[in-house]
């Protein structure tokens, strides 16, 4: 530990934004010190990513889309000092960042769930817009969680946040499990009927204490206003029996590791703001749902800060400090317990600032490692010595494929407004491409209600890549500005350079240039040339190098 502090003192840079004490080293330096302190000697030769690797990776991770060829040119040719730091800040400032992070949060919070009856759920674009606005305003995580848990669907601004409940059919058992998993990093499913037989720290009393917050909730469909609301009762207690021991117990609402919170004593006539009747959303005077929304997102809540920093770490670094991210317990500890604590405390001390945290992660040498293996025995993933190979999400894949056509970039040039007050117009440019992106997303999306697991490509997805007629149309000379300009470029060496920059965000190797030349030299007939160019683009698009974030 002394070594880590000393290393930080020597290399401490300027304090990052967020009101942090200037005497505390920047988080990204702390991260690197912790990670490298655990390494055996031979890993100290682990290499940093090239500019090309870094550009593609950070663009995908912060804006959900690969850069254009023009952006790649600019960044790779720039000799500006600190260009990586400036790139990170530029990407975080773009509206695309909020647009992308909203989808990441949506995936985390709903795992593609939809209410069994679609019309009982919040429409997806309303929910995504709620998240996008929250990210855009850099709403602190604890406040966002509070909004989500408090929402009963009625409020204009936070109504869409009720999607967390509605997408789970407001089923208390499912809510209990997922609140534990998604906000606290623990999966209490097997502790519903007895203490979890596998993990001593997952107790039935913890499950039932959490259950007590949500078991009075139900779905109410207001047919007149076509609204989906959360109704709640003022009574109902939780009594539970262990099917192993036969012991019976009762519990008030209680967060794992926390104290039980009994209901206040209220006279019968005082218990409801709106009494339960048919065709009415019952609203109790004392709401256990609102209690949950106040109590859970606190630094004192066991696992609350650790869970979110671990999940954010996992999205950027490909592997959590606790893995799986929803199964933290004594026999599944963090690979770097001190670092996890440091991250959690930093997050709390910077007011749960997600944007700042992502920035620090991106600035770290740990994040900026190459995906090429160092010499010697291969390090395990938990060493974080090598950048992992991660699949692009379905949305990243869809948007990146459209990006490669260069149709989006062309629209940016032609459709940019004269003097916009801000950058929000950028998101309008993407809208016409949604149907094509959705075509890709439906082929690559994971199952509803399942967190994304390790990379598991399917033959059905390969069939899509090989045979979907639309993919061939998107990369026809008529539709794709990229294909069109490559066809029109006489010098095959130049074609190779532009091709690789556009599709793979890097310059081609000498061999690759030779390959392109052999395919295109002396091919001047238009349709033949178009076919070959399209083939080159699609051949590279279907490669593992495109499919993976590396």
């Amino acid at each position, binding site marked *: 530990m002394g070594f880590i502090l000393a290393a930080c003192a020597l290399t401490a840079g300027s304090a990052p934004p967020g009101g942090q004490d200037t005497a505390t080293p920047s988080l990204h330096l702390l991260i690197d010190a912790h990670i490298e302190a655990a390494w055996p000697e031979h890993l100290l030769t682990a290499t940093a990513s090239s500019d090309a690797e870094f550009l593609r990776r950070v663009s995908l991770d912060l804006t959900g889309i690969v850069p254009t060829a023009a952006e790649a040119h600019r960044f790779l040719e720039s000799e500006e000092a600190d260009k990586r730091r400036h790139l990170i800040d530029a990407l975080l400032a773009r509206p695309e960042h909020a647009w992308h992070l909203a989808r990441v949060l949506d995936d985390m919070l709903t795992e593609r769930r939809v209410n*069994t009856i679609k019309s009982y759920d919040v429409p997806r674009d309303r929910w995504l817009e709620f998240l996008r606005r929250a990210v855009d305003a850099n709403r602190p995580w604890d406040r966002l969680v509070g909004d989500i848990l408090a929402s009963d669907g009625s409020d204009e601004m936070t109504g869409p946040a009720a999607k967390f409940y509605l997408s789970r059919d407001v089923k208390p058992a499912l809510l209990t499990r997922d609140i534990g998993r998604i906000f606290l990093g623990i999966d209490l499913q097997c502790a519903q009927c007895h203490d979890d037989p596998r993990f001593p720290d997952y107790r039935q009393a913890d499950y039932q204490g959490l259950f007590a917050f949500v078991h009075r909730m139900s779905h109410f469909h207001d047919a007149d206003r076509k609204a989906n609301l959360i109704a709640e009762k003022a009574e109902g207690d939780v009594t539970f029996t262990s099917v192993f021991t036969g012991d019976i117990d009762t519990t008030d609402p209680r967060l794992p590791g926390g104290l039980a919170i009994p209901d206040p004593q209220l006279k019968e006539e005082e218990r409801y703001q709106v009494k339960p009747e048919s065709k009415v959303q019952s609203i109790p005077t004392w709401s256990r749902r609102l209690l949950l929304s106040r109590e859970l997102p606190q630094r004192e809540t066991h696992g609350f800060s650790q869970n979110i920093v671990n999940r954010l770490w996992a999205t950027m670094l490909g592997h959590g400090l606790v893995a799986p991210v929803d199964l933290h317990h004594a026999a599944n500890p963090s690979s770097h317990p001190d670092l996890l604590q440091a991250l959690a405390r930093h997050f709390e001390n910077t007011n749960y600032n997600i944007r700042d945290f992502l920035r620090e992660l991106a600035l770290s040498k740990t994040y900026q490692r190459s995906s090429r293996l160092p010499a010697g025995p291969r390090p395990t993933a938990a060493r974080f010595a090598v950048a992992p190979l991660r699949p692009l999400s379905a949305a990243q894949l869809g948007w990146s494929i459209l990006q490669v056509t260069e149709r989006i970039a062309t629209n940016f040039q032609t459709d940019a407004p004269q003097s916009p007050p801000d950058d929000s117009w950028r998101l309008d440019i993407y809208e016409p491409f949604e149907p094509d992106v959705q075509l890709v997303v439906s082929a690559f999306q994971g199952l509803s209600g399942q967190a994304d697991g390790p990379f598991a490509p399917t*033959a*059905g997805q390969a069939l899509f890549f090989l045979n979907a007629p639309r993919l061939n149309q998107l990369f026809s000379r008529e539709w794709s500005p990229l294909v069109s300009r490559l066809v029109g470029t006489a010098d095959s060496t130049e074609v190779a350079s532009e091709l690789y920059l556009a599709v793979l965000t890097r310059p081609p190797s000498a061999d690759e240039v030779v390959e392109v030349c052999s395919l295109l030299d002396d091919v001047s007939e238009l349709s033949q040339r178009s076919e070959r160019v399209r083939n080159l683009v699609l051949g590279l698009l*279907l490669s593992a190098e495109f499919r993976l974030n590396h």
Partner: protein
Amino acid sequence: MRFSVPQHTVSRRQLLSGTLGALGVSACGQPLLAEELTQRRKKLLLLFQSGGASQYETWDPKPGTHTGGPFQSIPTSVPGVHISELLPHSAEILDQLTVIRSINSGINDHFFGHYAIQAGHNLPGHPVLGSVVAQQLEQSRDILPGYISLRRDGPKAYTDVGDAGFLGAKYEGLRVINAEPPEYLVRPESVSALLMQSRDQIRRRNDERFLQGRRPAPIHAYRDTFDKAFALMTQRDLFNLEQESSRDRERYGEHDFGRHCLLARRLLEAGVSCVKVTHHDWDAHQENFHWHEVRCGEFDRTFATLVRDFSERGLLEDTLIVAMGEMGRTPRINQQGGRDHWGKAWSMAMAGCGIKPCIHGSTNEDGTEVADGEVNHGDLFHTFLTALGIDANENYQLSGQTSPIGDPACAAIAEVLS
């Protein structure tokens, strides 16, 4: 209750449960055990009566009682055993069937029923039968997906409930609608075979370069799916029912259930581990008796043809044919002449894979309760898997966590397993 598990099943699962399995790729590069090659593969054909078939109008009639309705019962090829007059063809082959008359699932909801009956668990997130079988019985040489699900278009909201759960997208049932080949099996017209080949060379060459100095597993996993895809494209004709004789198409029935069952036979013969055929519209809340005449009319002849066919072709020994819905129907006949949802005492039938032909369990005189041999959907799940050579008492071995295959509180029905 534990059943002795044949040694080959254990070793096959060990083969497949290594880290490559978790990457969604069958254990390639591992030497195939000789046993795996010569062992005859078990298959499951699940005929799902979506909506809930009435046990009164099928396997457990109660003629002459106040709950029995207008139909009579008929004798079968098993002396002393009668089933509904709506299933005359099935009656002729009852000596080959196992009928369970004593199911108490406690579920009378379509959505929950579709999930729990197929998953064998009440807790959500578990994979359905088809996905389980696909994962447990897969072999590295397989080209076809392990689980294919056939149904007509125009599903109800509950028709597709239940999926591969935590086993992930790889074991998700390939959905075939109206017996049409799945999407993207054919090279688009605008791309010649030569172009396709050249395009693929570019892809493969780039993968070779990208592999240099990088962790190989994800790159191999991705590349292998293209090999599988090309192999799948050569199997397109499997979905062409024109290749079956017109006699067979007539015998199976010129309706979606019949066509799908004929397609199912083709797919199972070609090596698919599980085919599910959904027979729709059993939810007879109104005019129950007319409805069952129609549904049983379709179901009965196709089902009997299937069982006979499989038997004659020597396939019944290794194929488990299961016919059931997500629940039964109420003893009480409502004001529209319908029966409503009923999970307390209902029936199913199955054949093949060493299951003993017999009648298991019974209900009381008017069918309002199970009288004897009560089982639930978890027990049925255990039974199906055991017949297929899978020990449902074991856990899945997946990266991240272990989970029991069958509900630990349930057990296979010993009386029907030989």
